[in-house]
């Protein structure tokens, strides 16, 4: 009996040792991959940081209005944020490669899905950045045009346009990420429709005469503006 127990125990120990011996090289490979990944990610981060500083990405981000968002959220600069993001994505990628080497069955599919998701994440971030850039540019253009045309509430107009563009861009971003597609579509449709209807009613009820004057000025030739006694600049 005693011999039998010893035999079973030694067999179990043997199995564990054999399993560990089988697992250890994979673990070492994983740790090596994680280390190499960290070095590469750090290198990529440093290179990207330099490139972004060289092309003055912070200024671009400031123009896009992204810097103001980051400052409000007490986050570092856009260059730092993007560099860190790329560092973590790169390192995480290597760690996941290492985990894959371990051969844990349940994780394989999740890792594959993560790698498939990465391009969509990058595209979504790119769209978001371009969207913020467009929102900032067009809202500023409207603000300047409204101020120079002496239109009432120029900042409100500018903010409204900015909001519309950002909502539109967010809906595209969520669609690209595949997150709550249906909800976003319906929410966007309702919000956009409500906004347009609200503007139409507001303009129709409150701005009837403004609309009439605008259309007359635009289409009735020969009708001079009254009280336009500003001096010729040239």
């Amino acid at each position, binding site marked *: 009996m005693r011999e039998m127990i010893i035999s079973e125990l030694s067999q179990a120990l043997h199995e564990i040792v054999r399993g560990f011996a089988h697992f250890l090289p994979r673990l070492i490979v994983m740790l090596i991959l994680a280390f190499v990944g960290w070095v590469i990610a750090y290198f990529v981060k440093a290179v990207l940081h330099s490139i972004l500083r060289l092309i003055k990405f912070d200024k671009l981000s400031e123009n896009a209005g992204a810097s103001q968002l980051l400052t409000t959220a007490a986050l570092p600069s856009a260059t730092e944020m993007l560099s860190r993001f790329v560092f973590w994505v790169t390192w995480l990628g290597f760690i996941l490669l290492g985990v894959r080497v371990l051969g844990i069955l349940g994780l394989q599919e999740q890792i594959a899905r993560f790698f498939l998701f990465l391009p969509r994440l990058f595209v979504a971030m790119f769209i978001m950045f371009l969207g913020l850039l467009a929102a900032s540019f067009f809202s500023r253009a409207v*603000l*300047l045009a409204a*101020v120079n045309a002496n239109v009432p509430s120029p900042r409100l107009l500018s903010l409204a346009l900015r909001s519309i563009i950002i909502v539109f861009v967010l809906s595209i971003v969520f669609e690209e990420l595949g997150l709550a597609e249906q909800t976003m579509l319906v929410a966007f449709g309702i919000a956009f429709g409500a906004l347009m209807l609200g503007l139409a009613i507001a303009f129709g009820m409150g701005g009837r005469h403004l609309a009439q004057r605008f259309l007359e000025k635009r289409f009735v030739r020969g009708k001079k503006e009254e009280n336009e006694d500003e001096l010729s600049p040239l």
Partner: protein
Amino acid sequence: MAEGSFLTDDFLRQLINVGEVDILVGLPTHNNAETIGSIVHTIQSGILRWFPRERAVIINADGGSRDGTPELVTGVSIDDVHPASNLYALRTLHSISTKYASSPASGVALRTILAAAELVRAKACVVMSPESANIEPEWISKLLRPIYDDGFDLVTPTYRRHKFEGLLITNLLYPMTRALYGLRIREVFSPEFGFSGRLGSQFLGQNVWNDGTGGAGVELRFTLAAIAGKYRICQSFLGEKDPIERRAADLVPALRQTVGALFSALEPDFPVWSAVAGSQPAPATGANQEVLLEPLRVNRKRLREMFSTGVAELESVFQSILSPSTLAELQRIARLGEEEFHYPAELWVRTVYEFAASYQKSVISRDHIIQALAPLFRGRVFTFLIENRNASADDVENNIEDLCLEFERLKPYLLQMWKSRE
């Protein structure tokens, strides 16, 4: 000859038929049927009277007129001039027309005229405005004689103007170009000017035509190129300038055309203007510019309101362009009432220089920078109107001179910003 490659075959054929000329008159047009007949008639009279022995051609560069303007240019017969003025042509006076585009673009029109001048080897050229209803035959002589007889390369006009006309010129373009380029040219941007064939050819070869703006403000770039290239320049007094229809909406396009062109020239011309100190008067023929003083109704209140609204509403834009101290000072004066409001020359000059430096740096869209200057310019105009309300012609000139000296005094400030932003 490569510069003429953008000209149409038909236009080239017409130019070949004309052959070499001594005098070329360029006439850029777009829907000017109302005035163009009499203007061509006046130009022909001027050529017959002042250059009867020279070979001459009138070149019409049309931007897609739909009212028959080109036909009117080529249809005006020189025979109509004879009976009225007792003038007779010793040479054939050609009038040819080309459509350079289906929409007007002043830069393309000037480029067409310059290319034509180069192809026909014109010695002296003049560009005339198609809208100058009060043009006189003498204008042709006044703009061409200094080139043809005295060897000048550029003749810019001076006019008899009301003291409150052309305020962008008197408050920004003239003082700033004078301070930066060191030459006192009063009308740096004018629809009428004369130039030599060699200056035209040199400018034609410059890289100013493909900036995507259709060459807006290229007339000003032409003047600056002449100064920078150390060509011989003089000013010629023409007479009274046509009062232009006043519209508030004209300000932003005018700023784009002139201030935008000036700011964009500063970058390539930095080696030239950074080495200049002080300013020299440009030689002048005829009288100096004259100032008219009769009362003029101006909505001053609206100017101040648009300034104050602009400063308040565009704060986020100005934060990108102006220094904190300049912005704070503007915000302070924007809160003042109509009686106390004063936009001092020193603050105006600092504002303009900071805009120029921001334009060079492209802190935001360059077009937005130019647009943002409009409300501030209105504030400066308000102060100019108040300061010169009861001023005599001499007082107005003295005030403009003081502003010019302020631009010259603060030039190191612009240089400092320019270098720190490089």
